[in-house]
Each structure stands twice: as structure tokens, then as C-alpha cells.
């Protein structure tokens, strides 16, 4: 290359004119901040649990305070044997969050893989995955869970397996759609033309573009799983006592709703805010990632 210098000179003319792509200044979204803050708070408190000075033993009975409303001693009031509801929510939250996390990871890993392969390879792989998705989604969810619980017995593992079985096909379908879209873009063809191997195309070109969808849906899934677990507890299909989850606390409160409405409303509020925050963060992430695509 003899004429590199003029090339450089020409290119710097180009440089002067390059677009500072009109990227809108992001307004500080206080709702988003609140949602992230709430989630961080919930996770930290639940993880630390008993280590925190204000969290008591969730099974300790206070005979002086039975079925009492919120007070300075018992922030969320007490249950029918005098247990501290706030502490129960913290310790139960640990289990609920664990179920949510486990199911989300399993769902994203297995559902994501199925969807990715189906959308990228198409052909018979896609056909098989589509049948699996359709069939599993067609099975009445509740019956499936009852069936699994009947076989496996009530345990944490059963709950995670049962809810995962519902999450996998749903996530597979979403990832498949997203993959189909990405795999159709010209840069994937360009990689093929360059002679890039299939696996490398999948990992380097397709996956990074499916990832944002995946991450956003992970948050949404997490929220849905929390609600699903609570519903199962409510129906008595989730973990058995003495293990506590948010769902089981609410379920207990429901039995004596007239005496202990705080046992339904306060844990319910925590659950509600957590799920709402998860949904909101998922939605926002989806929107933010999208801006990168829009380009010119």
C-alpha cells in the first residue's frame, strides 16, 4: 500500500463529518429508580435475614401478642400464635425469591436454548420444538402441578420443577421468535458468507442480539413465578410448614381474615410491589436495549 497517507487524509475529512448519532439524553426515571431500589432492598434484607437486628426468629411465639395489628415491636403485626409477621415475610421471602430465581434460571437456560436452536437451525429442530411448546402450553397448568405434586410430594424441589415446566415453553416461544427475527438479518448472512462456522455465528452474531429480550423476559418471568408460587401456596400445593413463603403467609392470614387482615395485606403489598418492580424493570430494559437497534 503506497497510498496510505492520502487515504488517511481523506478519511479524516470523513471524520469531521461523522454523526454524533442523535442519542436522546435519558431523563432520570424516578419510577425506574424506585423499582430498582425496592428490588435491591428486598433482596438484601431477605438474604441477610436473621443477621439483621430487627429480624426475629419467625417461629418464636409471643404469647403477649397474638393476632395483633402492626406495632413498634411487630412492624407487620403478629400471627395467630404470636409469631412476628415481618420476620416471617423476610425469611419466607428468601424461599420465594429462591424459587423465583431458580425457575427463572432453569427457564432461561432450557427454554432459551430450545428457542435459540429452533429459531436458528429451523427445519426439523424447529418443528420438534414447536410441537413440544404447543403440547406443553396446551396442558392445563394447574392439573400439571397437582399431578407432579401427587407423584413427588410437596417439597421445594417439586415446586421448582412444576413451575419450571410452565416457564420453559413460554420462554422458548419468546426466544424462538426473537431468534428468527435476528437470524434473518443480513449480518447473519454476511457472517455465513465470510465462512464463519455455525456455532460461532450463533454465539457471536445471534445470541448478543437475542440477549436483551432474554434478560428483559427474565425479569418478567421472575415476577410471574413469584405470583405462581403464591397461588400454589394459597391452594396448599406449595411447600409444607414449617417452611414459609410469601404465599403461605398470605394463605394463613386468609383463614382468619377477620382477625388478622394485616397478614394478608402487608405481605400482599410486599409481593405486589416486588412483582410490579420486576415487571417495570423488565419493560424498561426492553425499551432501553431497543434504542441501540434504531441507529440512523
Amino acid at each position, binding site marked *: 500500500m503506497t497510498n496510505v497517507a492520502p487515504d488517511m487524509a481523506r478519511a*479524516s475529512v*470523513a471524520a469531521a463529518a*461523522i454523526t454524533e448519532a442523535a442519542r436522546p439524553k435519558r431523563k432520570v426515571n424516578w419510577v425506574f429508580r424506585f423499582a430498582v431500589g425496592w428490588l435491591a432492598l428486598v433482596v438484601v434484607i431477605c438474604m441477610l435475614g436473621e443477621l439483621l437486628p430487627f429480624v426475629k426468629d419467625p417461629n418464636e411465639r409471643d404469647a403477649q401478642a397474638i393476632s395483633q395489628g402492626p406495632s413498634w415491636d411487630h412492624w407487620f403485626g403478629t400471627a395467630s400464635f404470636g409469631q412476628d409477621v415481618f420476620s416471617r415475610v423476610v425469611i419466607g421471602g428468601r424461599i420465594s425469591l429462591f424459587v423465583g430465581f431458580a425457575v427463572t434460571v432453569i427457564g432461561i437456560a432450557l427454554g432459551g436454548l430450545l428457542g435459540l436452536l429452533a429459531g436458528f437451525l429451523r427445519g426439523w429442530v424447529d418443528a420438534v420444538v414447536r410441537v413440544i411448546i404447543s403440547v406443553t402450553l396446551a396442558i392445563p397448568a394447574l392439573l400439571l402441578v397437582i399431578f407432579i405434586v401427587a407423584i413427588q410430594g410437596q417439597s421445594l424441589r417439586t415446586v421448582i420443577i412444576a413451575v419450571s415446566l410452565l416457564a420453559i415453553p413460554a420462554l422458548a416461544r419468546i426466544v424462538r421468535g426473537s431468534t428468527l427475527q435476528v437470524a434473518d438479518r443480513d449480518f447473519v448472512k454476511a*457472517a455465513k*458468507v*465470510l465462512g464463519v462456522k455455525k456455532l460461532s455465528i450463533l454465539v457471536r452474531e445471534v445470541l448478543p442480539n437475542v440477549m436483551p429480550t432474554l434478560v428483559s423476559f427474565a425479569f418478567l418471568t421472575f415476577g410471574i413465578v413469584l405470583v405462581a408460587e403464591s397461588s400454589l401456596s394459597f391452594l396448599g400445593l406449595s411447600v409444607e410448614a414449617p417452611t414459609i413463603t410469601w404465599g403461605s403467609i398470605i394463605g394463613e392470614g386468609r383463614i382468619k381474615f377477620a382477625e388478622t387482615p394485616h397478614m394478608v395485606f402487608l405481605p400482599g403489598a410486599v409481593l405486589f410491589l416486588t412483582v410490579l418492580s420486576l415487571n417495570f424493570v423488565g419493560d424498561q430494559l426492553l425499551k432501553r436495549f431497543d434504542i441501540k*437497534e434504531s*441507529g*440512523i
Partner: protein
Amino acid sequence: MAGSGTAHLRDDPNVLVRVEHMVVEFPISGGRVHAVSDVSFDLVEGETLGIVGESGCGKSTTARAVIQMPRPTSGNVFFRGTDLTTLPSEALRQVRPDLQMIFQDPISSLNPRRTVRDIIAEGLRVWGSRGTWTPERIDELMAAVGIDPRYGERKPHQFSGGQCQRISIARALVLDPKVIICDEPVSALDVSVQAQILNLLEDMKERYGVSLMFISHDLSVVKNISDRVMVMYMGKVCEVAGSDDLFARPAHPYTRALMAAIPGRHSDDDDDGVLEGELPSAIDPPTGCRFHTRCPHSQQICKTTEPEIRGIGDGHFVACHFPQVAGVE
């Protein structure tokens, strides 16, 4: 078969790509789309072959089938004597670096999540250096296509459409290919930018000795960049000729219609540019010459017998029973 034949294939030792009787069909419910039907052509080293025609004529499919994306239904594609159509996929992958491609949509053809330098160097990552370019010289390549190397770490969305097309060109050049297929590379660009890319392609062709297959619906663009032009209609070759020669004496009635329709050439006395009727279905194409349903010179024979490609002098070939040239019956 109409519009078929191989009279226009050349016996040149420098032929890089030789396509013989290529057929591409896509099965759909209720039949099959005859996208490319018995098309033959060749590309000589250092040459630019323009392929021109309207939407649905199979020009893009023809070019993509050369690089086996998709693989043709039948026929042969020889690249330097090797038949690509029978190569197993790993052997085909080994040939890919020599046959590169630039796409129409500058945005869609670059991965939005990778840096420009990374995109351009991708070929080297797979194959290592194949001659001119090495990872250390990516800056030089960027400069050669008119992208400031200082912007190598940016993502594609920070560049304009024209700049994205330059990046695509660099990505194709990095492997020192023999052939670059340009599929409507300037159609999505503004006219002033279009000229930049056309000039750049000419320069790169000159400097790095690549041959181009240039697909476009725009006759002026094709004439400007091509040495030889092939006109297609409904998956068939209508006419093949040197660029200037084709425009000086278009012989196929379809070529003439295309030329008369070029905007700006409007005058009240030419009705050539308006074709009668609609484009027939590619699932059930017309018998005989596929253009006969819309051709102003159509005769009985056109409905029954497909014309063979034949020479009318000076490397000018036409597939028509009644070419519009003095002295040819």
C-alpha cells in the same frame, strides 16, 4: 426452454465464475416458484457484470445462488473450475473467503452490538491473514474505504447509511476475495451518497483486482459500473452485452421497454416504456418466451417456443425470436 442457451459463455482462460443452466425453485403450498430458470453466464477476472431487471426477475436469487445461498435446484456453478453445487458444506466453507457479498440494507448488514473494527476484522479471525490484510492493518483498510480508523471502536448505529456501506465493503475486502457480489448496494442510499459508493467500488476493484457481480434495478447505475450487463425477466436471461453496447443498441423488446421507462427520458411519442398487462405469476410462468404476454412484437412462435440465446455481433447476445436490430431476422 425460452431465454436459455449458452451461446454467450466465453472460452476465456480467465473465467472465474461460470454458471451453466442454473435453476432455482422454491416449493410453496400449491406449486413452486420458478425464481431462476436455466440461466447461464460467466464472469471473467477483473470484470464487473451488471445484472439488471425489475422486482421478481430473479437477479438477486441468481447472484446468491452463485455462492450457494440458496443452493440451486439444478445446474452447475463453477468457480475456477470447481463445481460449487456439489461441494459438501465444509469444502464450500473453505471457498467462501474468495466469494464475498455486500447487501442492500446498510443497517441490517452490520451487527448492531459489535464494534466496527471487530466487524471488519471478523474474516481474519476465522481465516487468519490471506495476503494483503492483517489485524494490524485494519486501520489502513478502514482508511482505504474512507472510514476514520479513530472511529473503529464505535458501533454501526453511529454511522450514516453510506458509511455503513463502506464498512461492509471493508469487511468483504479483508479476505482478499476474487469476487464480490453487490446486491443493490446503493439502492437504499441518497443519490449524492450513491455516487460515493459507486466510485469507491470502482477504486477498490482497480486497486485490489476483485471482480464484481453488481445487481441493481437502476439501469443508469448498472451502466456506470459494469463492463458487461445481463438483463433478466422472470428468471430468464433476455440479453447480454457490453455495457455501452447494450445501451447503444438494445435488442430485446424488454430491454427497450426498461430503457424507455428511465425517468427523465419522458417524451410524448415513446410508448415503449409502458408494458401491457401485469407481471405473470412465477408459479405458473407463460409458455414459450416468458415475455410474450407483454411484448409488443409477440408472434405465434413466441407463445410456443422459447428463444435460444444467440449472438448478434460484438459480444452482444439476445434471447428473442424478433430482436429489434437491423439485419437480424
